[in-house]
């Protein structure tokens, strides 16, 4: 425990600015992944334990596209689309077979996919950790703002994640697609009885959720090392976010991501050895006092 250090940090703007942005960076990437988890859970009532693997595949795909094209933006887009399509395939071929059955069966299917994709990654890309490197367009000196330091790439990352989140929110709230999806989340059979091909929507939602994970992987690729199994820790964190925010709530995922991001960034100063513990503690407290999460509706 070093609460003095935390107080000292909170007392200086430069430290606050730096830690705030660092919290946002962690939080926004987490948000992209967690929003996919929460979207899929909200609509399909399925917990996608393989979401971390989709993130990993997104990062590796971006790496390969980057080697091929040399353009980071093309790679990021390509990775998101590729992982989205993979998600649709995953949903159609595997997950749709275990809808309605025991949640444990769904868990097992996801577990199998996690194992298989980790090994396939190792076979295709090798066990050596890969690094994409910073694309030249972002190799700029960090921006200084009120004494704090903000790397341009991270600024881009935060804005991109927020933009994607906003777009997702608009699609869900404003479009007919979103209207159907929201309805299907509450009552899938009724939507189906209205003549809407609800299975297509399920596949699409899974695809979008996956594409979000893929995009997160692509955004992370320049700054994180790519290894088989890299989706593991991010999966646990995205579940914490999903549970705190409320299963099924995009807004909840957004708020909870920021909470976790800030817990990490300020926690690393104030209670560096117990940051993970505090995250689980927050999750436990939310579950005890408001099981449906900060923004969730009670579970069906």
């Amino acid at each position, binding site marked *: 425990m070093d609460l003095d250090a935390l107080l000292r940090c909170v007392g200086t703007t430069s430290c606050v600015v730096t830690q705030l942005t660092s919290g946002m960076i962690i939080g926004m990437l987490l948000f992209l992944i967690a929003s996919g988890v929460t979207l899929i859970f909200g609509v399909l009532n399925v917990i996608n334990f393989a979401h971390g693997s989709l993130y990993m595949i997104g990062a590796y795909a971006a790496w390969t596209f980057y080697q091929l094209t040399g353009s980071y933006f093309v790679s990021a887009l390509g990775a998101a689309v590729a992982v989205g399509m993979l998600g649709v395939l995953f949903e159609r071929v595997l997950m749709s077979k275990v809808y309605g059955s025991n949640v444990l069966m769904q868990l097992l299917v996801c577990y199998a996919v996690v194992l298989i994709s980790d090994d396939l990654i190792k076979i295709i890309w090798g066990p*050596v950790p890969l*690094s994409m490197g*910073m694309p030249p367009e972002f190799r700029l000196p960090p921006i200084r703002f009120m004494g704090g*330091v903000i790397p341009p790439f991270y600024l881009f990352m935060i804005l991109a994640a927020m933009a994607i989140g906003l777009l997702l929110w608009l699609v869900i709230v404003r479009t007919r697609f979103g209207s159907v999806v929201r309805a299907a989340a509450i009552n899938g059979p009724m939507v189906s009885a209205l003549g809407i091909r609800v299975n297509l929507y399920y596949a699409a939602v899974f695809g979008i959720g996956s594409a979000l994970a893929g995009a997160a992987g692509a955004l992370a690729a320049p700054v994180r090392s790519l290894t088989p199994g890299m989706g593991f820790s991010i999966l646990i964190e995205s579940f914490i976010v999903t549970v705190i925010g409320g299963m099924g709530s995009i807004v909840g995922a957004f708020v909870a991501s920021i909470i976790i991001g800030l817990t990490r960034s300020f926690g*690393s100063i104030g209670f560096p050895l117990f940051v993970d513990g505090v995250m689980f503690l927050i999750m436990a407290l939310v579950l005890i006092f408001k099981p449906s999460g900060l923004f969730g509706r009670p579970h069906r």
Partner: protein
Amino acid sequence: MTSTESRRASRRQVLKGAGALAAAGVIGAPAISKAQTGTIKIGVPTILSGRVAILGQTSVGGLKVVFDKFNAAGGINGRKIEMVVRDSKGAPQEAAKVTRDLINNDKCEIILDAEASSAAFAVQEVIREIGVLCLHSNSETSSLTADPKLHVPTAFRTARQGIHDAIGGGDYAAKIAKAKGLKKWATCSPDYAYGRSNTAEFMEYAKHFDGNIQVVEESWPKLFQPDYTEVVTKLLNAKADAMYSALWGGDLVAFIDQANLYGLFDKQASFMVNLGDYGVVDQVKQFPQGVYSGGRYNRTVPATKENEEWYQNYVKTQKHKPTNWSWENAVAAEFVVEALKKTNGDTNGKKMAEAIKGMTLKSQFGTKGTVTMRAEDNTLVDYIIGYGVSLSKEPYVSDFQASAWEPIFELEKQWKKKQGYIS
């Protein structure tokens, strides 16, 4: 209709039962079938899956190169060496189970423990009980061999040892610190036993050699943590003159990439003990200048013909670059081969241990062209350690300075006394 269905079902059940029997057979069978071929079986528990699969892959590579050569030369008394490699997934209890199976079931006569630290301790307990020869080739945790409570007569370590690195590194760091006036230090190491003890020891010896050094900030990211942003910003806020890091592998690559964004390396001198290894150093795309890296494995350290040949041969036969783990395992394999020659092929744990204890081996990985298995605590000494200045391209290191072993021995003895390991 029902009857045919049920008959088919029952046949299926029979088949299933047969499968189970066959499976049970597999567990017992190889013991009988393979023992007659007369090879010397060496069991290798290691990590082949998950994030550090590279550890297992390059460890096995190091072993293979030596054993292939031994077998090509005809083995000993007509007996060749056969490696049995098993994935423990890095879990200590699996490592213990796998090691027991390798000995009891696959009839392995020697164990080459290519596990990471915590599993190595579990393997050590198995060896204590069964008493075969065991060489720990990857665990750097000092206590494994330094702590007499953990001592097992037939177990040795061919891996580098944390305390050696710390003393050598501390000496080097202190020289640079004195020359450049680096007083305020920060640390950034993974939060687990290796990272903690390695860092504490490094800073202890840096302070020992330069009394002006003080640690102003410590950060302990989790092992395999994907994002180091909060750590980097914390280090920035510390405004230290220099930083020490024991991060390794993919974690180190990610840390460097992320710290670059903040220009962290422009603001301070950095000492990274695990940077100078293939698989790390050639993955860093934007290489920071003026970073000091510890020697892990490098084809130019030492810059001898033998080393270059060894490197070329390794890459050619194993299809990947060697790592620190490769040389550690190659040395382990060399010890096994030499000991077998001494015992004339007798793999008895006690006899092999007697042969290896105190053995000095010709090796390009040694400071004087040799490495020695120190008799007093069954651990490797005289291997090359040291620091150099990192470069962004091959050979990735310049001005490499090998640590002298005499001061290391002396300070190691003091350290052991302080720990209560020796009186």
